[in-house]
């Protein structure tokens, strides 16, 4: 055994010991309040046997573990960070593809692993309730529960979060300073984001919502670009402004519901909320609307996004665009529309207008951005407008399209930010006018760039098309706008049809700015200034190839994705359409 290898082995052993110690400490902490040993072990195992919990807490545990690692050992830190972000992906992908079921057959059903594999059964999209549901008492004095579970809406987003986190983690290997702090915050962020999509208790939801906010603030503020402090504070305060209103709305809901619980499932159908005075209902709706619309972001609330994107380091931009924005649209579908379908119906014309304005306005502003990253940021505003338009339409097509568009945008825009990062690392410029001819200089880069860009402009055969198509189809057929809304002399359902046509025009604008960007950055004679620029290295390439493969595969065969959420969309549409 060579010296280096022996060192490596002892290093791994030492880290493993650290992990075990941390686990032990957590176990002891969890032991407080439990009476018997068996009960304690049972509770502890059941808690972490739940795949969702394990996915949420693996990165958080990783963050704790990283605290005990020497800050000079960058390789070790990176390796462990990758391992702890990969755990949710491995688990969740297994739940999706059902390989835990296969594995479970190897073990006796009564054994520890056998039982675990039985809990980790394949995700059932058509299940009425929530898969992997877990309900524990948490803060008894307020009757706050710890509830997690996944359904057709949250599962795809949970899966995508796990996926993008791993890729962003690989992309984070380029971070050279304060590596330890970076990965600790990054792992916390991942845990928080996963938690947001899994939480089924408003209190827990709020906690995870804020947990994902704080690391983001530091990640932008410390590792960001020149104007990072301004961007970080703007991002933090803007989002906090929204979440405070959400807290007010949550408390109001709690008081009105009269069921004495924060559970999302129970509050969604609580008669107390449905029969509350319209003013209070508007207050609750408005609080959530503000919080989610800022996060999405819808048109007048979007200005934090370009600043945060431009200043954030590449992997954080990817997380921001790929996942954090989806928390807003997730909130729309999880909270806003199921709980207040009547208000959604009355205000549909207004929210739809904001969505349509976002589509056109985002595309317009993106068209003339000199900064590549800002261009992609504004394209996010445009694409997220599609998602909200799909939700506003309140029919299965619209909901399906919205979820699919969330995934498409997560993959496509994530890839675009990674690619911009690749350029920036080499050229130290993001200005479009300084670039050119990269197709000749960096052919592999150009290949992936074309796939991401074409998906972003909604080319049929790539994933971006399906979301936009379903959304426009849903909006066109929607009668989810209060018929009495007569805006500018147009009847309600005709209004939705007009929105659909405007959104379709947005597709042309998207093609315009994407192709123009591609032309200026990639085409033309090889730029003398960038001559001899190395093509993507393996790390960058393999962070991007999985995204590109999924963009193409799910563009050609979107059925596996659609199977996850079509039942949910149908059920949600049925639920909200009781109004009509």
């Amino acid at each position: 055994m060579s010296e280096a290898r022996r060192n490596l082995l002892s290093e791994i052993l030492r880290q493993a010991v650290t992990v075990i110690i941390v686990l032990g400490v957590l176990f002891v902490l969890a032991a407080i309040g439990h009476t018997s040993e068996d009960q304690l072990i049972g509770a502890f195992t059941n808690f972490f046997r739940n795949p969702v919990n394990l996915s949420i807490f693996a990165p958080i545990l990783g963050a704790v573990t990283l605290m005990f690692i020497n800050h000079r050992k960058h390789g070790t830190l990176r390796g462990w960070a990758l391992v702890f972000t990969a755990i949710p992906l491995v688990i969740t992908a297994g739940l999706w593809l059902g390989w835990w079921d296969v594995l479970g057959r190897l073990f006796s059903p009564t054994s520890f692993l056998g039982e675990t594999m039985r809990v980790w059964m394949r995700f059932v999209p058509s299940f009425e309730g929530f898969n992997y549901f877990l309900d524990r008492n948490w803060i008894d004095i307020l009757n706050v529960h710890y509830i997690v579970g996944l359904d057709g809406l949250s599962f795809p987003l949970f899966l995508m979060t796990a996926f993008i986190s791993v890729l962003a983690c690989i992309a984070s290997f380029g971070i050279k300073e304060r590596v330890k702090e970076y990965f600790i915050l990054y792992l916390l962020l991942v845990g928080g984001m996963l938690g947001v999509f899994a939480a089924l208790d408003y209190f827990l939801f709020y906690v995870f919502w804020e947990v994902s906010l704080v690391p983001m603030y530091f990640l932008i503020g410390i590792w960001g670009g020149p104007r990072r402090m301004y961007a970080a504070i703007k991002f933090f305060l803007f989002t906090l402004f929204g979440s405070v209103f959400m807290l007010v709305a949550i408390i109001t809901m709690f008081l009105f519901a009269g069921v004495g619980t924060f559970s999302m499932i129970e509050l969604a159908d609580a008669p107390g909320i449905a029969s509350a005075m319209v003013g209070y209902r508007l207050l609750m709706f408005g609080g959530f609307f503000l919080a989610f619309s800022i996060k999405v972001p819808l048109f007048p609330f979007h200005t934090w996004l370009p600043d945060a994107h431009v200043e954030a380091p590449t992997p954080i931009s990817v997380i921001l665009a790929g996942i954090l924005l989806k928390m807003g649209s997730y909130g729309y579908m999880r909270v806003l529309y199921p709980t207040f379908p009547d208000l959604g119906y009355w205000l549909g014309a207004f929210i739809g207008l904001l969505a349509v304005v976002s589509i056109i306005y985002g595309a317009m502003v993106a068209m003339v951005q000199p900064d590549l990253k800002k261009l992609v940021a504004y394209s996010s505003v445009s694409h997220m407008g599609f998602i909200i338009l799909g939700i506003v339409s309140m029919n299965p097509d619209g909901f399906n399209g919205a979820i699919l568009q969330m995934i498409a945008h997560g993959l496509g825009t994530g890839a675009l930010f990674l690619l911009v990062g690749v350029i920036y690392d080499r050229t130290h410029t993001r200005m479009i006018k300084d670039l050119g001819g990269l197709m000749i200089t960096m052919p592999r880069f150009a290949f992936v760039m074309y796939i991401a860009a074409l998906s972003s402009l909604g080319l049929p055969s790539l994933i971006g098309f399906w979301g936009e198509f379903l959304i426009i189809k849903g909006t066109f057929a929607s009668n989810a706008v209060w018929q009495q809304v007569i805006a500018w002399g147009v009847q309600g359902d005709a209004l939705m049809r007009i929105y659909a046509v405007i959104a379709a025009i947005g597709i042309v604008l998207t093609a315009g700015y994407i192709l123009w960007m591609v032309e200026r950055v990639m085409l033309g004679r090889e730029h003398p200034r960038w001559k001899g620029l190395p093509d993507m290295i393996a790390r960058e390439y393999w962070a991007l190839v999985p995204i590109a493969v999924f963009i193409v595969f799910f563009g050609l065969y979107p059925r596996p994705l659609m199977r996850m959420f079509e039942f949910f969309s149908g059920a949600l549409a049925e639920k909200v359409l009781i109004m009509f």
Partner: protein
Amino acid sequence: MHNWVWLIPALPLISFIVIIFFGYRIKDRASHLLATWMMMLTIVGAVLVLLEKFTGAATGAFTQAFPWVQVGDLKIPFTTYLDNPAAITLLMVAITAGFIHLFSQGYMKGDVRYSLFFALISLFSFSMFGVVLTDHFISFLIFWEIMGFCSYALIGFYIEKRSAQLAMKKAFIVTRIGDVGMILGIIMLYYVGAPLRFSEMAAYFGHGGAHLSQAAVTTIGLLLFCGAVGKSAQFPLHVWLPDAMEGPTPVSALIHAATMVSAGVYLVVRIFPIVQASVVTMTVVAAVGAFTALITALVGLVMNDIKKVLAYSTMSQLGYMFLALGVAGYTAGVFHLINHAFFKACLFLGSGSVIMGCHHQQDMRRMGGLAKLMPITFVTFLIASLSLMGIPPFSGFWSKDEILGSAYAWGSEHGGAYWLLFLAGELVAFLTAAYMTRLLILTFAGKYRGNDAPTEDFVEDQAKLQSEQENWEIKKYDRSLGGLKTLYREDEEPEKHEEHRHVPRESPWVVGASLIVLALFGGFFGFVGAVPLGITWWQGFITFGHAHHAEVNWLVMGISTAMALGGVFVAYIIWGAKFAVFMRLYRTRLVQVLQAVLANRYYMDHFYNGIIVRGFMVLAKASRIFDTWVVDLIVNAFGAGTKMFAYAYAWFDLWVVDGLVNLAGYMWLGIKRGIRPLQSGYLQHYMLVLIIAAVLFWVVRYFF
């Protein structure tokens, strides 16, 4: 073969995948051999399919399906629909694409992105086969857009050229505008509950679309027609096709002449039940076709670039096909679609051969006398030209005659303004013959002008192109550099003028072979439907609704033949014989102005760039300013306002809240200061105070 028809698109897909991923590993030779032989196999497959159709082994339409996309009520099976037009179009695509692959081996020789070229045309062939075969509208849309992407990528194949970059972007965006209309049309189909499978449309929309209101049928028809207008470059979305000639010539032949642009016509053939169910849609299709045919044929008369003339000719002929479909000439439209694909592919390949011979010179003012120098090219080009002009007995004559016959019948049936369609058709026949004769004279007749001193107008045009490229490069690259000198290094000096005289040579055998095959098809395929000779196979094979009764309208035939011959004659006396009187006429002000209008394509590009594109750019810039100075300003003002409020509060806190606290403190301090002297600690002072107090007490007690 029917059950295996999906293999036909699969073959080029395989070559695409192999070449795109391993193209840099395998040699160029391997890529072109793979791509070409896969295409040759598809020809065999297409022939087998057609034979089965022909012998009646499989009658009528044939579909096969497996589930593909299912979400909500959106269920899309992956289905092929192989009716007679599909079978014949399949063969046409296989033959043209196959021989254009072969031709490209010669034409693209030595290109730096040789294998990429073959990958892209293979992908294109795959998607074109998909468009032809697929049954469901959504899968049609997908193939349609992959095709659009290939067109985009191949137009801009020479990415260094500024004009190519502009052309590729323009092509994509302009066709995309049409596609948005088509997507809305598809959504309308869903909305009204109509079938999206082409095979079910005839039953649903038969009898004038009785299931739906006339308005709905018309709207759907017109929206779907938008897609065809974009793809087939019809007015007002025709502006992209002439620019698309920036691509390599085989691409122009395959995509922008024979197959992709015909796909628009093919779309209208597929949705013909919808189109036919509404008189308005029919009229719009016919009118758009006739108008485009006329205006583009006129422009074809003045273009100097050999490929541009052919491009305008393509638009004109596509307009002809739309005219045919719009006057219920279904049989004639498909007939012309196939014939045109063959002879136009041959013409483009011929022009490619000419361009190769003339050392990549595309300007006809630098050609001439090539008939003797390039005999194979000349003969094949001549056959295809005669076919295009509609001179009997070549292919084009038979299909054009069918179209004009249909237009005549339509005119006499409806009367009035519908006669204009027939009139336009005849005029286009005249113009087609004229511009093709001009092309032939300038290219092949007389003596070779490539070694002459360039004429003034040629130099002017070249300088314009050159400066456009250079200005752009200076603007793009000069900002960061010391000038263009570093840009053009020694190894890539700007091309020097070739001093030595050169004589055009005949192109290599792959080129010649492709030309001969396509000329045979292009010149003589039309005999399958030569009604006056008693051959009516075509009219029985391609029918819509009731069988087409093949009868000969000698009047129409006479007029159109006269028109074609008249066009040849007029072109000959203007450009061939150059009679002095015509030359004088040519120099009059009116003709010069007219020529300028035509050469500038009616200033349509100026209009689009100047008004629409610039309008959007201004709007976009305004949005950006609004975003920075209004929306973001409000956010920042909100932040700043909060900060000001915080400062005000801090001041209040410091001076008022804390001030009150301190005031209380100071007050006690004052009081303390006031009473401190009382507690001096000296006994005598206390004694004194005691005595004074006692005295005062006594005084008060005693006196008051």
